[in-house]
């Protein structure tokens, strides 16, 4: 009897209940919140559900040595986490994004590319704010990339510049991407007049298949020559798009845009979530990362919309751009473009801005990858 009691007592020490403290409960609460937002509210469910469940996995209180924690070398989760740590999941996600993205809107109206560039001010605004709050330049660069509104880019850059802050940065980036419909509309309304919101843009011209094939090749060569450090992201993005547009590699495109990206999304979401172990995550600097991350989204939306307003001063009547698509330059494909469309339709239900907004939206992906390459070049 005594032995049985002793065994049960020993077993109790192994359980999560015995090792639990308030920090773990807070993180479990966040995990449940993510699951609620993803499942019930359907905010970016593809991301929030795996991340939310990952947070639960990573925050089951346990004592080290069981070889199950994401930070314990050799554990299954640790092996899966290597894709995040070594940075090979993000380029694979970019491959899938490339294979899913139709750049027609951008090719038919290439001036929309510039909006994608303007919105990258969010990254560098957040960089400057982070420096002011005492983060060192590498950490500031990793925090700044949240403003790129691109989860894979954020993970890729933070895994190189500030690996210890990657969990907080990734969760922050994905959270704000999910919150784009909440963050952006007030800023868009604040910066635009009613007349501007009613601007109707010319329908995009038909794009030939040759142009679609040339875009990824020229796009890659140009951007990679300018920022070679962005090759992993840019190369995979444009390669993915080429296999889609070439017309002869349909099977590869289907795999990249279907099973491959799904598998990697599951792994990246789950392991990023699991990396938010309470002892690693619940620190004051994580709070600052979330605050600065929010600032970066606000700045990016501001600069995107303002840039369109300024750009319109130089455009002829009839060629003007509706400033409501300026927000889409932040990337966050395709949610930011949907926000442009929804806000536009509030003022003119027959004005569909989605096609136009997809231009700056995908330009934002290219812009943020170039910006990430720049940060890596200067700070890596």
């Amino acid at each position, binding site marked *: 009897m005594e032995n049985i009691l002793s065994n049960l007592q020993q077993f109790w020490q192994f359980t999560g209940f015995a090792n639990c403290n308030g920090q773990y409960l807070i993180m479990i609460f966040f995990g449940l919140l993510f699951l609620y937002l993803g499942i019930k509210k359907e905010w970016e469910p593809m991301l929030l559900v795996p991340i939310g469940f990952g947070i639960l996995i990573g925050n089951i209180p346990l004592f080290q040595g069981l070889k199950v924690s994401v930070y314990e070398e050799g554990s299954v989760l640790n092996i899966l986490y290597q894709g995040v740590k070594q940075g090979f999941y993000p380029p694979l996600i970019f491959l899938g994004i490339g294979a899913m993205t*139709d750049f*027609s809107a*951008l*090719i*038919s109206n*290439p*001036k929309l*590319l*510039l909006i*994608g*560039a*303007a919105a*990258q*001010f969010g*990254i*560098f*605004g957040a*960089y*400057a704010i*982070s*420096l*002011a709050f005492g983060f*060192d*330049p*590498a950490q*500031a*660069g990793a925090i700044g990339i949240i403003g790129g509104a691109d989860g894979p880019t954020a993970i890729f850059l933070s895994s190189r510049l500030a690996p210890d802050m990657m969990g907080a940065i990734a969760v922050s980036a994905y959270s704000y991407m999910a919150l784009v419909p909440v963050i952006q509309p007030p800023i868009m309304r604040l910066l635009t007049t009613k007349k501007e919101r009613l601007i109707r843009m010319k329908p*995009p*011209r*038909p*794009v*030939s*298949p*040759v*142009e679609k094939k*040339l*875009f990824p090749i*020229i*796009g890659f060569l*140009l*951007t990679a020559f*300018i*920022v070679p450090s962005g090759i992993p992201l840019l190369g995979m993005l444009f390669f993915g798009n080429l296999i889609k547009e070439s017309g002869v590699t349909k099977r590869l495109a289907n795999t990249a845009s279907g099973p491959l990206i799904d598998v990697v999304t599951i792994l990246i979401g789950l392991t990023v979530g699991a990396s938010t172990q309470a002892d690693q995550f619940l620190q004051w600097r994580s709070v600052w990362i979330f605050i600065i991350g929010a600032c970066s989204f606000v700045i990016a939306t501001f600069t995107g919309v303002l840039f369109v307003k300024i750009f319109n001063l130089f455009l002829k009547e009839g060629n003007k751009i509706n400033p409501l698509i300026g927000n889409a330059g932040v990337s966050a494909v395709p949610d930011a473009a949907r926000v442009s469309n929804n806000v536009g339709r509030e003022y003119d239900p027959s004005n569909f801005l989605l*096609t136009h907004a997809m231009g700056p939206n995908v*330009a934002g992906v*290219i*812009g943020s990858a*170039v*910006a990430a390459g*720049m*940060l890596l070049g*200067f*700070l*890596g």
Partner: protein
Amino acid sequence: MKRIKILLTVVFLTVSAAAMAQSQGQMRLNEYLIINVSDYQDDFGQHSSWFELFNASYGTVDIGGCFLTDDPDNLKKYQIPGGDIQTQIKPRQHVLFWADNQPFRGTFHVNFDLENASEIIFVKGDGKTIVDRIPVNHELGENVSYGRLEDGIGSFNGDGEGWSVLERTSPSTNNALVDKAAKPDKMKAIDPHGFILALTAMTVVFTALIILYLLFKLIGIINIRAGKKKSAAAQATTVEKSTYGEIPAETYAAIATALHLYLVAEEAHDDESFVVTLNPVDRTYTPWSTHIQGFRQTPTVIKKK
């Protein structure tokens, strides 16, 4: 199939050999010291002549099987043993060899000494290709080394360009004093508020996307012009090609119009080529297209009596 396998194997081996040879070609003689009185000592406590190799590449290089020599007429004088983990030189790292004429003391002790050598030569594993060579400067004093001013930089044909007497010996480490400050620290000193980096990076982002914009603006103009020419040429030949086989042209026109209206109304496509091609369906048999592969078998219902 067998041929393809053999071909693939040959291609793989050739590429691997080329890649290996290529990386061995990035090894550089980097520094040497002839009269070692009180400088670096080996594992046996001896002060011997030494020379250093530097991996100038950004990949690990296995120098096992390569040769070191002091005799241009005998390029295979000392073969670096293969299979030793220590001969795998990490990117931008150094490896030190003791020129003590005591090869039995280990992988890194060669069978010649520098006091009697006229030059040091590093040869690839093929025993023929000289990767780097440097004449031995016998005017060097005690504990004075001769090396590249910067690791791996300078000529490798023996003319000594980029080499000089060094201020201090630096066995197994950088010849030049490297600025220890990492990039972020430098950036912090130059740009404490982040404005310079922001402006630089945004200039680059805008430049890249402006060039892309200009290129695709140009391609768009060319494409529109080509499209106009094509449609003009198509209109000119419409009358001549109005029938194909026995089907009247009106049928094609009706099909094309119906398809176009369907696709526009359904918003199924955003881009139409306005060309409809009707080809006979080719139903070539393959095992993948049989019904056996594609359908589940219908379950048999057995009625109980």
